[in-house]
């Protein structure tokens, strides 16, 4: 226990100091934080609950549009903003920007949670691959439909308010980094605390055998919906931050980007090891480093590399990094290993 506290303190200090140690990578670090949030929340469904969703991108995109719309709409007419390409006609003062951002993030987190609660009963009744395809359809439908709505920019996109001039050039990067870092810390604490309660056991029971869990008297639907709402809350928050960070929202390429973000979150959680607390964090970090490090070598071929990567990870490495470590060092994970049994297993192989 003591060791854990030291570890968490060290990580927290590192996280707080990171933008000053690597000042050139502030934007990359912020994106990493957003990716970790997405992977952690995907893991609640895909890893713990056994509901492999492609649809968390819905909440992410929803949060992105809501945050930007609130931030603009609080002070200026939204329709004129999107029509004129935004920033040229209206300028946010610093106070307006931060007030709008705070309000926007609240809305971006709360509305997707409500949406998840509303659609949860219908969607989460589906099982297995029907759920996967249904959520995939949900994400794409949201992208296509939001691409046809005029007030949020339709096909030409939506420029989010530019960061106001507060005197320092570094301020924008630091602001968004600390915002996203806060989101990570919040997500991690929430996920860790719910994983140490009965809630996690119920989620795992749903994953292992839902009918039996129901027969044991667990109201599975209630817990599934609550789990999805928690995911939606943090996905929306991450989306809102990402919208401000990127500065430009397009319906199918940035917000409801099933081809990138939607797959990334699944891939990161699987790469790290689904169904573990640290897996998504490790997976997201490794994936992001790989992506940023090697994408430039594959210039133009990123999607080809991504496709190959998905196939390779899914086929040859479905247990993920944490699963592999667990296989190798079971003692570290608190599993009691019978030596004789282990030897017999090795001989069998």
């Amino acid at each position, binding site marked *: 226990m003591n060791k854990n506290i030291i570890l968490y303190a060290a990580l927290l200090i590192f996280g707080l100091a990171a933008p000053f140690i690597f000042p050139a990578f502030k934007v990359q670090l912020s994106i990493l934080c957003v990716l970790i949030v997405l992977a952690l929340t995907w893991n609640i469904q895909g890893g713990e609950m056994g509901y*492999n969703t492609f649809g968390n991108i819905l909440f992410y995109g929803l949060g992105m549009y809501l945050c930007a719309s609130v931030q603009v709409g609080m002070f200026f007419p939204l329709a004129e903003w999107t029509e004129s390409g935004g920033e040229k006609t209206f300028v946010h003062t610093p106070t307006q920007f931060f007030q709008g951002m705070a309000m926007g993030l609240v809305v971006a987190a709360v509305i997707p949670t409500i949406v998840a609660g509303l659609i949860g009963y*219908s*969607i989460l*009744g*589906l*099982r*297995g*691959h*029907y759920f*996967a*395809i*249904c959520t*995939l*359809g*949900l994400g*794409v*439908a949201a*992208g*296509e*439909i939001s*691409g*046809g709505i005029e007030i949020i920019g*339709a*096909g030409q996109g939506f420029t989010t308010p530019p960061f106001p001039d507060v005197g320092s050039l570094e301020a924008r990067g630091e602001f968004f980094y600390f915002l996203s870092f806060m989101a990570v810390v919040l997500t991690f604490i929430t996920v860790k605390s719910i994983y140490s309660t009965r809630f996690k056991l119920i989620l795992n029971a749903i994953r292992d055998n839902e009918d039996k869990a129901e027969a044991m008297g667990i109201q599975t639907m209630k817990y599934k919906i609550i789990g999805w709402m928690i995911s939606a809350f943090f996905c929306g928050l991450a989306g809102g931050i990402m919208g401000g960070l990127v500065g430009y929202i397009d319906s199918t390429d940035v917000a409801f980007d099933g*081809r990138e973000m939607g*797959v990334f979150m*699944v891939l990161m959680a*699987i790469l790290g090891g689904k169904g573990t607390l640290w897996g998504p964090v490790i997976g997201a970090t490794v994936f992001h480093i790989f992506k940023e490090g090697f994408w430039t070598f594959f210039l*133009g*071929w990123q*999607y*080809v590399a*991504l*496709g*190959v*990567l*998905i*196939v390779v990870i*899914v*086929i040859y490495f*479905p247990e993920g990094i944490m699963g592999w470590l667990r296989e190798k060092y079971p003692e570290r994970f608190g599993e009691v290993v019978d030596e004789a049994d282990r030897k017999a297993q090795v001989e069998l192989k």
Partner: protein
Amino acid sequence: MDFLIFQVPMLTLQATLDGVLLGILFALIAYGMALQWGVMNIINIAQGDLVILGGYIAYFMYLWGIHPAWGVIVSPFIMYFVGVGIYKLVINKVVDRDLFISILATFGISILFMQLMNFAFGADVVLANSGYGTTMLFDNSVTLPNSKIFSAFISIVFAIGLVVYMKKSKLGRAIRATAQNARAAKILGVDTEKVYAATFGINAALCGVAGALISITFTIHPYMGLPYTIRSFMIVIVAGLGNLPGVAMSGMGLGVFEEFADYILGTEFRIGSVFLLLVLILVYRRFKLSRKREYLK
């Protein structure tokens, strides 16, 4: 919202005929999906990308001066080997695994194909001009391009041909036996590995036919694959596995729905409405089945 379509009977007729002809094409793709889903228990997200690839084969024949209608013959031959290649490289490793693994793996293949086609053929929307002209009906108030009639006819020919092939030929019998019980088929001397490869190849070949027809009648674009996957998935779940008349009927129904959605909501919501319909159908079935305490399996 534009409800003019219901007040002008000719427009309604036009949309219905367009939808039926389009739906027959969808049914052909869905047939391939039902085949490999039923036999191998795999949902192939790359289905639509195979269609688009088949379309590009016909398009390139058109560019080289061959009439694109010959693509209907050439494209399935090439696509059969593409399908077998995909099976040998990827699919045979996911056949016995969890369904989500196959969904994710084929999703990866889909992204890969999309981007490779984007590199190889460019990101332009293209079509192969067949030069078949149009048929006018009812005093020129309903226009039907002959290419659409041609494509519907060819689809029906291929579908019937395949049904007969599955019933009569040795491979067809082996495929049906494997679909019923793979273990029993193996014991009785069916090389299931070969059957799986052939099934996936036939599926890809059907996609090739459909793609060639789509490149003649409509347009193709590297990123247009996913909607075709979703449409065929939707048709299969509405019809049920192994229900061929159902596949044809629900294919046409989907085609008509799309044409009407196109008129009423506007073209920009066409793809969105297809995906939304998928969600609604799945949710409807979930409530229908939950009354009997069953669920989609």
